């Protein structure tokens, strides 16, 4: 079953085409990788799905419903959350609070109830903290609960972003270069986490990543972008041997010479 469909997605900035006519179908509960050289339009693609940018033309369908024209927070409420290439945590809030913000849209604790100290609101907040702790436990940050998010080490920040994103209980999770800047051990851990999330959380994962080992290991299917255009798609071993892909990465002539 397809959970996400992207049709003829195009984005232009002024006269510059960032992505042009991208089509994708993403199966439910799959792991999909979007790869391509720098400046290929991968992050722009994510930004359009999460409504940070509005596409110039084309459509994005989540379970058959169009997301185009929604506000970013509405997209999140529809069930798509993400992490960011250049980490965007709430740096002056604690690690726990970051996850609680992730849970924002699912919490029914209105502030007027908080002011009146209604018992069920207090219960909701208490349960939320427990759940947030569970999530931190899950991403391996249970020892940093009260730390300011800005003080975490780089790899831990990446994991906190994932924790925050899954706290929103997404149907589709977008990871923008989750392994960037990680050492092999951390990447290994991340790989396991992504696998585990797919089975445990029943979530569909799309990731942008440059680490080809990681991509080949975990993806069910791969889409390759170059200069804003979709040049190839398929299973990992199909992509591995695709001439166009090798050209895009290594430059024209690389195939015939090699």
């Amino acid at each position: 079953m397809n959970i996400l469909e992207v049709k003829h997605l195009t984005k232009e900035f002024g006269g510059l085409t960032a992505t042009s006519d991208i089509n994708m179908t993403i199966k439910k509960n799959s792991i999909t990788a979007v790869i391509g050289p720098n400046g290929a339009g991968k992050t722009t693609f994510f930004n359009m799905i999460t409504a940070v940018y509005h596409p110039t033309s084309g459509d994005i369908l989540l379970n058959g419903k169009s997301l185009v024209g929604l506000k970013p927070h509405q997209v999140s409420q529809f069930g798509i959350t993400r992490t960011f290439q250049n980490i965007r945590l709430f740096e002056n809030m604690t690690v726990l609070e970051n996850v609680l913000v992730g849970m924002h849209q699912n919490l029914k604790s209105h502030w007027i109830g908080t002011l009146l100290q209604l018992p069920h609101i207090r219960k909701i907040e208490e349960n939320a903290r427990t759940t947030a702790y569970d999530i931190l436990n899950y991403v391996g940050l249970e020892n940093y609960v009260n730390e300011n998010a800005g003080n975490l080490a780089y790899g831990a920040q990446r994991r906190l972003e994932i924790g925050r994103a899954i706290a929103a209980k997404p149907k589709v999770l977008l990871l923008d270069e989750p392994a960037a800047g990680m050492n092999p051990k951390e990447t290994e851990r991340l790989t396991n986490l992504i696998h585990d999330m797919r089975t445990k959380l029943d979530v569909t994962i799309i990731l942008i990543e440059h680490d080809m080992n990681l991509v080949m290991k975990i993806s069910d299917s791969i889409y390759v972008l170059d200069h804003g255009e979709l040049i190839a798609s398929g299973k990992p071993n199909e992509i591995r041997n695709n001439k166009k892909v090798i050209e895009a990465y290594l430059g024209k002539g690389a195939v015939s010479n090699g």
Partner: protein
Amino acid sequence: MLAHIIQNLPQVLIDGLTLGVVYAVVAIGYTMVYGILELINFAHGDVFMTGAFIGAIVLFLLMGMGFLAALPAILVFIIVIVIAAIATGLLGVGIERVAYRPLRKKNAPKLIALITSIGISFVLEDLVRFIAELKTGNYIVTAPPMFNHKFTLNLHSALPFFNNATFQSSFLLVLIVTIIMLIALDLFVNKTKWGMAMRAVAQDRDTASLMTINVNRVISVTFFIGSALGGATGVLFMIQYGTIDPYIGFILGIKAFTAAVLGGIGNIRGAMFGGVMLGLLEMFAASNLSIITHGAMGAEYKDVFAFIILILVLIFKPEGLFGKAVVEKV
């Protein structure tokens, strides 16, 4: 009603143009600093005010020495405006060194830089008030009259639907000097090495510094030029309007900022245009609001008018009339 508005039009144009060029030059100070640092330099209006007071001080000194009577007025004026411009230029460089550069080094949030600029603005206002009050006993200073020969533009006889318009010779002075400043600046920014460096830093500070441009020095030069222009305009303001006080910079600064936004912030020619346009609009409002609204709103609403323009532009066309839209990088 329409006939009345048309009758006053020549006078509105003259007064609006005078005010407009003043806005234009002050707006350039805002737009240059914003273009490079993305900082609203709240103190800039007060640099303009300080320029007016420095001009007044120099003028009084020259008068005390008897130069005012001995030298031709235009020479006195040139001495005054040059000294005021250099002094305020250095003041601007000093402000940048003391208040903004340390924050840039620390990579502090923009909010903090805004707050220091408000602080600087307070300090300047009060220091000037203090000095003026200490020397003259009153913080409102009336400059010795210069260039106050009155001209009447006899339009009525040729074009009977217009009233006659009057202006002082200082109007011509303001107009000529600001036009010279604007052209000189335009040439500087577009034709010289420093101007090119300035544009490069405005575009991308990091890349510019990789290209061996000394970013800090470019920023200093920017502050010097912007502040010197502002200070010189202060002198023009003093000569045109006669009285000055330490608080003239505040409202005028906001309006000049409005002009900068109107023309597209960061865009120097846009700021010039925005200033003149705002001056004309404001004078038009001041002389006609009462007629248009049948007395419900008078000239006292002209400031409201300017603020509403600011808010409308920021909401509907935040990039200004001549700016390009910016997309935040995610």
